[in-house]
Structures are given as structure tokens and as C-alpha cells.
């Protein structure tokens, strides 16, 4: 009599795997990565590759020699972290700085908590913020050598749009003056990728394409991203309506900074975002509000990274108190 396999039901499994989900995220990020390499040149490519490679290496080494368990780099989560970190940094960041950032992201923000699924804060953002605080000069230097095939020019050296606005407003000019002086601040320019910023910020279209891909592949649901974007739009819109000379319009706020990259790829990271739909909306609203506040009243021009990290801290609380709708419970 043959030995049959006995197990509990269910006896079949979908073909979802962690690796497939991570692979879809990488594919969704490819348009933005390719656009940034096209506009900013090979340094960005090297930066991204080093970031990914060092992230994978650190995870492998730590899992094998420090945690003494089987290395799980196959699940591609370190690749995603490395890619996101690379896309979050200015294009001329020295490679040794990138490696340090990658180390902080993987070893400190992910492995010390126990590995995949156990960390509280988004590893790529922790890496970026660590670099921002430790190496402020490198991380706020947005100029780089323009690749020779780009002729459209002077749009690329200098500060990011948000940086320009912050400094300009502090210097006393009004919003209209600044837009007249700097053509890259127009919304159409930013949508199409002709303004400065970190490698991943440059093209709104590419990022939105990635978002649509993730939605189609059912990797993420739209709740978090849409609640962040709507909140930012509404909240910054209120300020703009109150004084259009001191505040940029809501569309500018949506397109500038790392908001699109953050809301589509960083805030929706599975491990650090809430799991229940209601909690996800509250999370998104919180990130939106904090982003606008930091941008308008904080000393940093860009607020998405900090906003996401702050909201990551209260995710366990959100998960605990905002449970999903139960079947058969009368409200």
C-alpha cells in the first residue's frame, strides 16, 4: 500500500509568493528608474546598482553569520529596499555614502528587529533620513553633470523645486515671482520630468504608471495612496486659497518632492503600513497632514519621509483599534 500524503485542508494553494509580490514592485519601479537614468545619466545607474547590491549583500551576511539562519535574499525584499533607497537619493551622492545608507536600512532598520516582516519603520526611509541627518551636504546637493545627449538644458542644476520655493519665500519673493523666474516650477514641466530632485522624483508619469501596474496586479489597494494624495491636495489647497502669494497651488504640492514616490511605493510597504482598510485611510490622512505641515512650517523643504516614519510608529495602534468590518455584526 502506498504511503499517501495526509494534511489538513486546504490542499491547494494559490501561486502568491512573497517573491512574486516583491518582483511586481520592482517592475513597477522600473519606469521611474529608467526615466531617471535617461535624464540624469549613468551615475544614477551606478548608484542604484550599488544600493541594491550592498543591501542584498548585507542581508545575506547578517542572516548567515549573525542570525545563523538560512539566508532569504531570494524573496527579493532586500532588492526592493535597495532600489527604493537608491531612487530616494540625490543623483550625485558619493557611492560610499550610499553603502552606509544601505547598511543602516538593512542591518539596523530591518535585521535588528528580526528580519522581514518584523520592522516597524520603513527601512529605505530610515536609511535616507539617517543620511540626511548625518551627511546634510551630500544629501542636499542636487547638481550633477548633465549627460551630453540632453540639450534642453539649464533646468537641471541647482535646487529641487521645493527647495527653491522655500528659500525664495524666506527671501521675500512671492510665489508668482518665483514661478516667473524658474520655468521648471511649472506644473507641466514637473509632470513630464524636467525638474530636479532625487532620482525617483523626476517623472510623475512614470510613477503613476507604476501605480497602475501595482493596482492591476493586485499588489496594493488604492486606499493609502489616494488618501495621502487627497489629503495633501485638500490641506495645501486650503492654505493656497487663503493666500496664493505665499503658498504654492495644490497640484504643485502633489507633483513635487517625493510625494508621489512616497505615497505609491514607500507608504504602501506591507510591513510598515496598516492592514485594515479603515486604518489605512487614517494612516494616509495622517501622512498627508504631516507632509504639508512640515513643508510649509518646518525647516526642511521636504516632509514626506518624516511624515511616513512618524505614522509608521502608530501603525500597531491603528491595527489594534481599527478592526475590519466583521460578518454578521450589527453596528
Amino acid at each position: 500500500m502506498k504511503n499517501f500524503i495526509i494534511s489538513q485542508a486546504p490542499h491547494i494553494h494559490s501561486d502568491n509568493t512573497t517573491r512574486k509580490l516583491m518582483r511586481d514592485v520592482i517592475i513597477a519601479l522600473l519606469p521611474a528608474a529608467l526615466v531617471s537614468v535617461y535624464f540624469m545619466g549613468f551615475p544614477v545607474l551606478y548608484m542604484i546598482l550599488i544600493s541594491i547590491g550592498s543591501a542584498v549583500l548585507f542581508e545575506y551576511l547578517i542572516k548567515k553569520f549573525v542570525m545563523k539562519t538560512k539566508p532569504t535574499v531570494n524573496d527579493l525584499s532586500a532588492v526592493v529596499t535597495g532600489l527604493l533607497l537608491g531612487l530616494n537619493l540625490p543623483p550625485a551622492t558619493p557611492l560610499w555614502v550610499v553603502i552606509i545608507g544601505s547598511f543602516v536600512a538593512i542591518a539596523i532598520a530591518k535585521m535588528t528587529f528580526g528580519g522581514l516582516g518584523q520592522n516597524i519603520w520603513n527601512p529605505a526611509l530610515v536609511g535616507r533620513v539617517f543620511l540626511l541627518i548625518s551627511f546634510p551636504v551630500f544629501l542636499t546637493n542636487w547638481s550633477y553633470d548633465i549627460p551630453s545627449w540632453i540639450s534642453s538644458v539649464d533646468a537641471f542644476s541647482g535646487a529641487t523645486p521645493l527647495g527653491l520655493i522655500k528659500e525664495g519665500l524666506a527671501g521675500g519673493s512671492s510665489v508668482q515671482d518665483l514661478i516667473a523666474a524658474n520655468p521648471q516650477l511649472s506644473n507641466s514641466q514637473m509632470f513630464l520630468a524636467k525638474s530636479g530632485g532625487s532620482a525617483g522624483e523626476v517623472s510623475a508619469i512614470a510613477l503613476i504608471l507604476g501605480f497602475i501596474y501595482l493596482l492591476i496586479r493586485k499588489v496594493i489597494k488604492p486606499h493609502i495612496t489616494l488618501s495621502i494624495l487627497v489629503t495633501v491636495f485638500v490641506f495645501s489647497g486650503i492654505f493656497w486659497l487663503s493666500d496664493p502669494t505665499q503658498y504654492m497651488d495644490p497640484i504643485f504640492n502633489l507633483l513635487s518632492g517625493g510625494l508621489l514616490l512616497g505615497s505609491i511605493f514607500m507608504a504602501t510597504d506591507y510591513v510598515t503600513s496598516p492592514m485594515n482598510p479603515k486604518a489605512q485611510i487614517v494612516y494616509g490622512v495622517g501622512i498627508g497632514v504631516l507632509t504639508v505641515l512640515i513643508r510649509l512650517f518646518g525647516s526642511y523643504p521636504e516632509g514626506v519621509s518624516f511624515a511616513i516614519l512618524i505614522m509608521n510608529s502608530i501603525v500597531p495602534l491603528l491595527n489594534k483599534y481599527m478592526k475590519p468590518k466583521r460578518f454578521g455584526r450589527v453596528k
Partner: protein
Amino acid sequence: MINIIIYTVVTLSVLGLLLALVLFLIARKFKVEEDPRIDQIEAIMPGANCGGCGFAGCRAFSENVVKATSLDGFFCPVGGNEVMKKVAATMGYAVEENVPKIAVVRCNGTCEARPKTSVYDGISSCKVIKTLYQGDTGCKYGCFGQGDCVEACVFNALKMNTETGLPEVNEDNCVACGACVKACPQGIIELRNKGMKNRRVYVACMNQDKGGVARKACANACIGCKKCEQVCPFDAIKVENFLSYIDYDKCRLCRKCVDVCPTGAILTDNFPLKKKLEINHAEVNPIGVNHAEVKSIAIKQESKKMEA
């Protein structure tokens, strides 16, 4: 400049003193009056908080002892008789000496002796297998080998032997708290007397099927032939439902039963190797196994137990 330092030091010191005073007053006001003996007994307890005494930790044990009128029913398996004597002295009660016990795994269905009849695929939990079916061998009373007992032990006294598929007790660490007994869904583990010189004799089988069925499922099974019951000079062995059981209070460790058992279902712990023992095994074994093989397996078993 110096003024600032003086001001700072003075302010902080005063603040610190004030707060310390507040804490002191609060601690005095809200102090819970407790029998001081609870603290005394808790200090004697080993502090393992294992629950082996039946209470929720060492403090709960102390509280209940102070409430009780005698030490009947109270025993700390980790601290043993030493600790109980000290507790008795503190409370002024009498205490009986408990015979030291140890956990014994009463199954010898190794991977070699007990062939698999199915492949179990799923979560590694004995409890789950028990709810699903009879286990992946022909014996539905035997050890499932997934290690619920190992997980339950907080004293690191159980280890799963990957070759045999059975758990092994570390005699130095086991305090007979009973956690593994509760964790085993098959009821295989028993707390038995540690025995003189740490030696024990026990039937390593739980199979209540008829002899032929049991033997087919496992080469080390007890077939209920009653030879052990007949030969025991101290009336310590009873065979019921085709399964033999040795009463550990009556057993005198003479090992006459071990010699007559045809399947080798009765195991011994910590006895010195006896060459004569192995030869008897092979002679009496009805299946006609290779003598050298049986001898070497028996020697391996004995020496493993000595090392454990």
C-alpha cells in the same frame, strides 16, 4: 557664567529632592499590607516561575502557602525537598519528603522500528496531528515526533533526536514539573520515580492493540504476552489491554522482566552495560534478526542513555 552653573545645580537638586519626597510619601500611603512571610518564602523559592507546583509562579505559590494551614499538596518540583524543608521551617509546619521524580518517554517507536504508513505534510505540531488522524505510522498510540513536549519544556530538558524521531530527556535538567506531560496529546510522557542511583525500568510502549497488530506496526511494541508479569518477583507488573505497565513504587530494578521480553519493549536507564543482556535479546527474539545487528542496536541504545 559660574552663576548659571550654580543655578542649574541648585534647581535640579531641589527638584530631585522634592520628587523623591513625593515618591516616598506615595509609596508609604499606597503600600499594600502583606504578610511578611510571603516575601520570606518567595526569597527561598527558585524563581523559575514554571508553574510545576500548580500555581501561577513562585509568588502565587508563596501567597497560597501563607494562606494554607498545612503544607499538604504543596511541592515545588524545581526546588525539591531542600526548598520545601526551608519553607516548612519558615511557616512552622511539617513537611513530608517527596520521592524525586523524572519525566520518562514511554515510547521506543524509532524510525527504524516503526515504519511510516503515510507522509504528514503540515504544521509541526503533535496536537494538530492528533486532531487530524492517527499519525504517520501504523501505531496510533505512539509518539508523533513533532516536539510539542520539547517546546513546552522551560528547563531545556527535552531534545528531539532526529535519528530516532523520539524526544530524549536530559536527566540533569529535568525537574519533573509536568509541563511535557500536559503537552503530549498521546499521554506518552510519565513522571516516574528517579530511582535508586538514578536507575529505572519501564515499559516503553503505549500500544493497546492486539499483539499481532502492534508488532506489525512497530518492532519494539509490547504485544501483551504477559511473560514480564509472570516473572516479576515483586508483583510490580500488570498487563491490561495487551499492554504491560510497571509500577515504579514496587519495582526493585532486578531486570528479570527485561530479560524475558521478546520484543525488547522494556527499557532500562543508567544501568551498566551487561553483555549477557544482548545475547538473551537475540536468542528470544522470534523474528530471527541478525544477532550482531540486534546487539549493536541494543548497545547503542544503552550508551545513548548513559550519555544523555
